């Protein structure tokens, strides 16, 4: 497991190697430059102001000598000032490029992860999606990616910074005085360990507080969505108490966290400042003994001051680092799922032919058999209808036809071509499927329809909408075709969504059309008009209608009755009502109702159904 995370991280780093490597080099450079400022100060204090020997590197000392040495510098004290400005400009430039490059590297990586995840999720088999929780997947694609991004853009280089700083400081300080160096760094390991370990507690407490906050939000949300129930039962006071309890728990959890925070920061400060004081006192003692100069004091105290924060931060980063690995693992869990594939010999044949199910067996993963040895034939260009009770496998037929699932055994052929050998995108493009609960994207209604056929003009789209009985509500809505739908748009009723989805599917060029209970939410009259339009529109399209409505089924060329995954009866409406069975029972229920009021009603509707 762990290896794979590292491989994912490594591949991200490798792709942006020049940015990260460049940034790393600049980081080292700017850390290095950072140590120059105190050195300049020390030179001024010791050499120019107190007449102690110079500690500049030889080439710089020679340059100063050439200019006229200490006397010259004393006359031109703006020169060290200029050096300070130069150092901060150059190190600023380094820092700027470093930050920019890391953020480019991190953002590139984040983009790659996001794109990979999105593309991969789209290509995963539907069976995967059927059992995955949307919220969890979204979380992985957003929060976890962000965690990785933050690690790359901030923490990665902070580690480099901290390690380099300690290293360089050691290299510079030890030559001045090994003893002071040791004293000056004595608390540092403790500070680091403290930050590392204690911050873990902080993170844990934070998670608890965050979870409590989530519960509090749930109470709020349930109260708001259930406002009618609350009011109808006069439970406002109890709701307030419930919310009060949740909100107070959140508050108290955060206050507990505040204790840890306060301890963490104040203790860290104390250790850091104690280190500074220790260094200062020891330096003073050494200076009094004449072993070091004022400049050395400035150098030591400044360097130690510069080290405290990165060391503390390093502890924090390390206790966070584990979370980045967890995030990588969660991302990788998605990416290592196998995508849908076509066979190597997949073809894109003409699909205008008979649909044949040949001894098809199908079960959902972990579920019982849904289709058992199912065989039937739908002649090309005809309309077939399926009727069946819950769990009889009607919808599975539709999903199998589009290869959203694959049968465990048996064959499905269209025009003699086994669909397992047909390229899945070709198959789906030729087989139009309208779902019972169709999905509309967060786009305008116009774009939603057009997405099935990007080349379609307004005229075609209007016609499809008219045939699907969607034109009226589209044109009546305030912004007409430009109405935004989907999650962030207006809420369409179930029937409106179904009609929009029908129009969308009609726009593409279909050899086969499947309506999976997709007229369930429109009223009977509209249902009839849609079916009428369909008949006019696509005479040679093979159509499969799955429905609960006898009216909808009655006109099909052939009706299949499904019971427990098998065809229990098939035939025309007339044939089926004359035979005992589910179809007839339903018919009897209707007749039974009709007896109760008027006989004519029965005839009237039957006529309507047969016109």
């Amino acid at each position, binding site marked *: 497991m762990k290896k794979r995370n590292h491989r994912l991280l490594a591949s991200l780093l490798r792709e942006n190697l020049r940015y990260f490597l460049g940034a790393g080099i600049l980081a080292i450079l700017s850390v290095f430059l950072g140590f120059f400022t105190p050195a300049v100060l020390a030179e001024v204090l010791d050499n120019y102001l107190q007449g102690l020997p110079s500690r500049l590197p030889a080439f710089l000392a020679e340059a100063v000598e050439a200019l006229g040495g200490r006397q010259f510098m004393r006359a031109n004290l703006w020169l060290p000032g200029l050096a*300070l400005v130069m150092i901060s400009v150059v190190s600023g430039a380094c820092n700027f490029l470093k930050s920019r490059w890391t953020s480019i590297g991190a953002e590139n990586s984040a983009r790659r992860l996001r794109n990979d995840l999105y593309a991969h999720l789209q290509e995963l088999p539907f069976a995967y999606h059927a059992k995955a929780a949307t919220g969890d997947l979204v979380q992985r694609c957003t929060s976890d990616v962000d965690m990785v991004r933050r690690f790359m853009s901030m923490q990665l280089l902070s580690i480099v910074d901290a390690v380099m700083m300690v290293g360089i400081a050691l290299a510079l300080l030890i030559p001045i005085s090994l003893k002071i160096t040791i004293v000056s760094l004595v608390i540092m390991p403790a500070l680091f360990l403290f930050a590392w370990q204690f911050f873990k507690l902080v993170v844990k407490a934070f998670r608890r507080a965050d979870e409590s906050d989530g519960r509090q*939000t749930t109470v709020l949300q349930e109260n708001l969505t259930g406002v009618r129930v609350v009011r109808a039962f006069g439970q406002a006071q109890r709701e307030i108490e419930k919310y009060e309890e949740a909100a107070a728990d959140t508050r108290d959890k955060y206050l507990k966290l505040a204790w840890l925070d306060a301890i963490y920061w104040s203790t860290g400060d104390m250790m850091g*400042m104690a280190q500074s004081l220790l260094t200062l006192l020891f330096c003073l003692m050494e200076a009094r003994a004449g072993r070091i100069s004022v400049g050395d004091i400035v150098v030591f105290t400044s360097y130690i001051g510069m080290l405290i924060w990165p060391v503390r931060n390093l502890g924090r980063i390390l206790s966070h680092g584990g979370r980045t690995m967890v995030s990588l693992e969660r991302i990788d869990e998605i990416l290592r799922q196998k995508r849908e594939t076509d066979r190597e010999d997949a073809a894109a044949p003409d699909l205008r032919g008979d649909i044949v199910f040949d001894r098809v067996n199908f079960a959902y993963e972990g579920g019982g058999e849904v289709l058992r040895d199912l065989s039937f034939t739908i002649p090309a260009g005809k309309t077939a209808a399926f009727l069946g009770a819950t769990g009889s496998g009607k919808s599975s037929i539709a999903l199998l036809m589009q290869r*959203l699932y694959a049968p465990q055994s048996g064959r499905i052929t269209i025009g003699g071509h086994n669909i397992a050998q047909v390229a899945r995108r070709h198959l789906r493009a030729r087989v139009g499927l309208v779902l019972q609960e169709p999905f509309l994207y967060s786009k305008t209604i116009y774009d939603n329809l057009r997405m099935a056929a*990007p080349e379609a003009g307004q005229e075609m789209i209007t016609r499809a909408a008219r045939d699907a009985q969607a034109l009226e509500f589209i044109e009546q809505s305030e912004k007409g075709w430009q109405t935004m739908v989907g999650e962030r748009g207006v809420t369409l009723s179930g029937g409106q969504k179904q009609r929009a989805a029908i129009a969308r599917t009609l726009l593409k060029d279909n050899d086969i059309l499947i309506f999976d209970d997709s007229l369930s939410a429109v009223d009977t009259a509209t249902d009839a008009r849609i079916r009428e339009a369909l008949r006019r529109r696509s005479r040679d399209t093979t159509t499969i209608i799955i429905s609960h409505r*006898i009216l909808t089924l009655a006109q099909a060329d052939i009706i299949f009755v499904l019971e427990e995954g098998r065809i229990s009866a098939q035939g025309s409406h007339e044939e089926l009502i004359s035979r005992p069975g589910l179809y007839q029972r339903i018919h009897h229920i209707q007749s039974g*109702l009709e007896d109760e009021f008027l006989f004519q009603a029965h005839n009237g509707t039957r006529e309507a159904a047969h016109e």
Partner: protein
Amino acid sequence: MSDFSHIEEQDYTRKFDPGLFKKLFLHMRRHWKKMGFVAAMMAVLAVTDVILPLMTRHAIDHYITPEGLSSPLWPFGLAYLGIILAQVGSVFLFILVAARVEHHVNYDMRMKGFRKLQELSFSYYDRTSVGYLMSRLTSDTNNLAEAFGWGLVDLVWAVIFLIAVTIAMLVINWQLALMVIAVVPVLAVITAWFQKHILKAQREVRKINSRITGAFNEGIMGVKTTKSLVREDANFEEFSHLTGDMRRAAVRAATLSAVFLPLVIAISSLASALVLGEGAARVLRGVISLGTLTAFVNYSVQFFNPIRDIAATFAEMQRIQAAAERVVSLLETEPDIQDSPAVVEKYGDNFHPRRENWEEIHGAVTFENVTFRYKDGTEVLSDFNLDVRPGETIAIVGPTGAGKSTIVNLLCRFYEPTAGRILIDGVDYRERSQLWLQSSLGYVLQEPHLFSGTVMDNLRYADPEASREQAMAAARLVNADAFIRKMDKGYDSEVGEGGSRLSTGEKQLISFARAILHNPRLFVLDEATSSVDTETEVLIQHAIEETLKGRTSFIIAHRLSTIRSADRILLLEGGRIAEEGRHEELLRRRGAYYELYTNQFREEAAGQLLGRRETAAEA
């Protein structure tokens, strides 16, 4: 929870509004003391921050000069230690107390907002989405609380540090001090500009980020549709554009920050350079000490921090103000439906009922010339009259938009009539408290709402005092007992958020049992059993009839069985009663009811045989 960030990302162009903050500040009266304490701690911290470089100066000037070599170091160490302790102590306390301010303020505002939400009328809920309200009591109160806790911390520290350091420098050496201060205006202008633009860039990033979240959500929820329309490539292309925009915006925001800090440090290094050049010359002339020089160099480096904090606080101000406006406007919204003071006096308010004064409800309901219009002027009911005897069962049928739900909403006093009166037992219900009526209601919705918790909790929602046996009896009555017992912990099984572990039909049964347990005088069933399967429907039909006996009930239903047994059926069309009477009478009349019946009910009956539950189970 869904993502509501788009609601937050409005553009803020308004001017600073001190009145608003004053109002908020008054709301927080309880926390003034704590805020004062935090400010005091920050003052201690700022002053010690200014003293520390002076300590170093003192050390350099007094302990290593020839004349100071003999003076003992320990008083200095002790003093320094004292400062450290003062600083550590104030850090500890300010974090603790600022967090208290933050979380208590947050809690208080949430409670105030929540209480207000329990009072607001349905007309408010109709025009305000749940998502919008949610973010008022989550992200808005969070932002405000944080601003009052920590914004204050930053601001106080920055201002006091700035003042103290200026005074210290001026006292030690005013010429050098002026050199450092000279850089301040430049720093301030640059900092303000950058803070503003960095914030703007970050806002852009957040905006795109919430779109990416939306795209992922959509890509996953719509995967079936995507696959069946072969939309994968087109979707990916759109998504890749989005992530490309994100990359650009994020790098832009990062670049702005990356320029900002080095730039400011370079500028403050100008001050250091001036101080060093001029200060060193003065040391040579013997005007100032070495220690003074190091202290000034120190100050010149630190001078920038408070300026940045102040700029950041002001840059955040707009966001805070927007949050403040929304929260204050929620707190100041007046509910449309309020009990008059006289009514509250006698019957109590929504939270503190005075049940001892409540009259018993018998269940006679009269609509007297009732007209109802929505705020936008759409008339739903006009001059509607209806007289219902106690115990009568009224079924309301009619096409969508005919006003069925409005009648129920008016009856429950979720709305009040625009004109006309509604009488309960002969008294205008506005002369009684809302709670008086609503405590006697049994209300079952088509889309049943359950709360997180166990089945038992939900059954006893309206009557927490009811015994387990009573609750189980109610469940048995509606035939819910069997499936409840099959759940992992029976009656103590969790139903999940919003009842997510149950099918719609099961939720309907539970919400029905909940209403029965409540033992109300008035019953309202809004398509209450539409998702229950045929078999169960037949079984609970009997229970419904039993339960409704002796209670006035209003039923909106498509189910034949329910409607048939009603004492009276009202067929509504366009806010008026088009037909009225018993089932057989109406059929015989061969009018609109007959039409509706033939078209709709027949197929429904067939659908039931096939198991309507499917819809719920698959959803």
